[in-house]
């Protein structure tokens, strides 16, 4: 299928735009973009950049008017969640969601489902097509090409506008995706105090703490520490999994870890199939032993 032009729709995050920049140029070189931003220029390999500085929900009709002129629409992140399904339906587009791999020549899009236990292959057979990419699965292609943003009015009546009445920044204290050593804890840790111990051992090892969803759900540690399909994707050399069973949704976030060490009281725990070193033990007893030995080695 010949793609004459493509439209990128996202916010102004460098990574998200970079990933869309990379994928869109595999289809064609005639790219425009829509960004949700308040910047006056954006670095992207595109001819034209339309801008909105409102929420995507307020701009959906204007976006549809612009989008109908393109063969392929590529989107991701929160903006993709807002506009993907709505545009596909309104503009009668073929569509694929949650794409984590693409066979470009065949127009085949791969989406992992069942918590990463199965891969679905979808073929797009007609244009226009809308493609929603999963974040962090594609190379982020940086650009030095600065394009002025042409701001567009959202065109909704005052009565219908969704307004932001408060914005609360979540202070990011860790960058799990970049850490070399991560000490993760799960439901088996049992308490907030347990996580304080894990943070201590992480520090001793020169790493950071992380967690499974069950631990985050229990409020033992905040969401920014969650590892897995709906949390961070690690690229660490070493990952300690203390009291984590190894659900595939958790394993999805440690796919790229070089050396996994699992500590679990249940010798049948699935995490042991993924780990390089397996230790059947109570996490706390093993942490104590590890601290002793690290102190003996490092003084």
């Amino acid at each position: 299928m010949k793609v004459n032009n493509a439209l990128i729709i996202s916010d102004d995050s460098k990574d998200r735009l970079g990933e869309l920049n990379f994928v869109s140029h595999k289809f064609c070189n005639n790219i425009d973009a829509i960004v949700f931003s308040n910047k006056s220029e954006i670095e992207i390999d595109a001819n034209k950049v339309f801008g909105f500085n409102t929420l995507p929900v307020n701009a959906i009709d204007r976006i549809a008017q612009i989008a109908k002129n393109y063969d392929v629409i590529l989107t991701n992140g929160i903006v993709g969640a807002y506009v993907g399904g709505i545009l596909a339906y309104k503009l009668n587009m073929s569509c694929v969601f949650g794409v984590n791999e693409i066979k470009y020549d065949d127009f085949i899009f791969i989406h992992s489902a069942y918590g990463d236990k199965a891969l679905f292959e979808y073929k797009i057979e007609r244009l226009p097509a809308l493609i929603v990419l999963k974040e962090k699965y594609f190379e982020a292609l940086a650009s030095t090409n600065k394009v002025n943003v042409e701001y567009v009015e959202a065109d909704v009546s005052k009565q219908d506008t969704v307004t932001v009445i408060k914005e609360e920044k979540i202070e990011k204290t860790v960058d799990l995706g970049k850490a070399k050593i991560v000490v993760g804890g799960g439901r088996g840790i049992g308490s907030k105090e347990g996580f304080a111990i894990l943070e201590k051992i992480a520090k001793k090892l020169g790493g950071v703490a992380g967690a499974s969803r069950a631990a985050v759900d229990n409020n033992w540690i905040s969401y920014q520490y969650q590892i897995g399909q709906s949390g961070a994707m690690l690229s660490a050399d070493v990952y300690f999994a203390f009291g984590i069973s190894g659900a595939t949704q958790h394993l999805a976030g440690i796919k790229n870890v070089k050396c996994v060490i699992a500590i679990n009281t249940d010798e049948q725990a699935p995490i042991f199939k993924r780990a390089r070193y397996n230790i059947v033990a109570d996490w706390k007893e093993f942490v104590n032993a590890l601290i002793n030995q690290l102190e003996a080695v490092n003084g």
Partner: protein
Amino acid sequence: MNIGVCIKVVYDYETPAEKFHLGNNRMHGDYKEVLGLYDEHAIEVALQLKSNMNAKLYAISYAKSDKVSVLKKALSMGSDELIVINGEKDDPFQTAYNLVNAINKYDIGLVVFGRMSSDLEREMVPPLSAAMLNWRYLPYVISITKDENNDRFTCIQQLEDKNLTLSLGGKFVASITDAPCNLPRIPNLKEIMKSKSKPIHIEDEVNFTSFDWAREMDVKIPTYEYVNEMLPNEDLNVTAKLLIDNLKKEHYL
């Protein structure tokens, strides 16, 4: 105003990889059935809103009617009525279309969905439903409250680096992501007993004109091979020392 929560029955999403197998390109049917993980959070948000605005809450599912026993959990958590549209296709357009028919029929003015189903994980059904209803769509919401003095709602949306508090009036669809504030409640005995007499409506499905969104070519189970080594655990000080030595030898520490 009536509110709705759309829920899906899925096979146990915590099934480990080595026990997972396919039949007809879908997870094979011999696993325990549960409600989707995000759907339980959506029920919790809907229940909090229900008590906040004294509304009637319908749990809605497009599913084979024999899934009622699993869907009843929504009633024992506190939903007022259950609507099951009897069908089994997993096309997102067919699903959304049938959910929308029920939303219209039961005069529902605000609907919440899970962020994604715990099996196919496409995040398609909520925005498609919003588009078919021609209502606004807010993703990644963690709480919804009705304002006291006017007809507007306040929603908190959880993004990667911030929480946004949003205000809107009129009809809308929200998809719910998980957060400690919407941890699903565990049904208590009183609610379980009460749920036994709550109405269950079974509706017939209506076919949506097929929408050729993409062709499903293949479904594969990925295989990963890892080398595992069990370390001795009689004396954990010895285990820890052995581990540190190995990690040093392999230049990880």
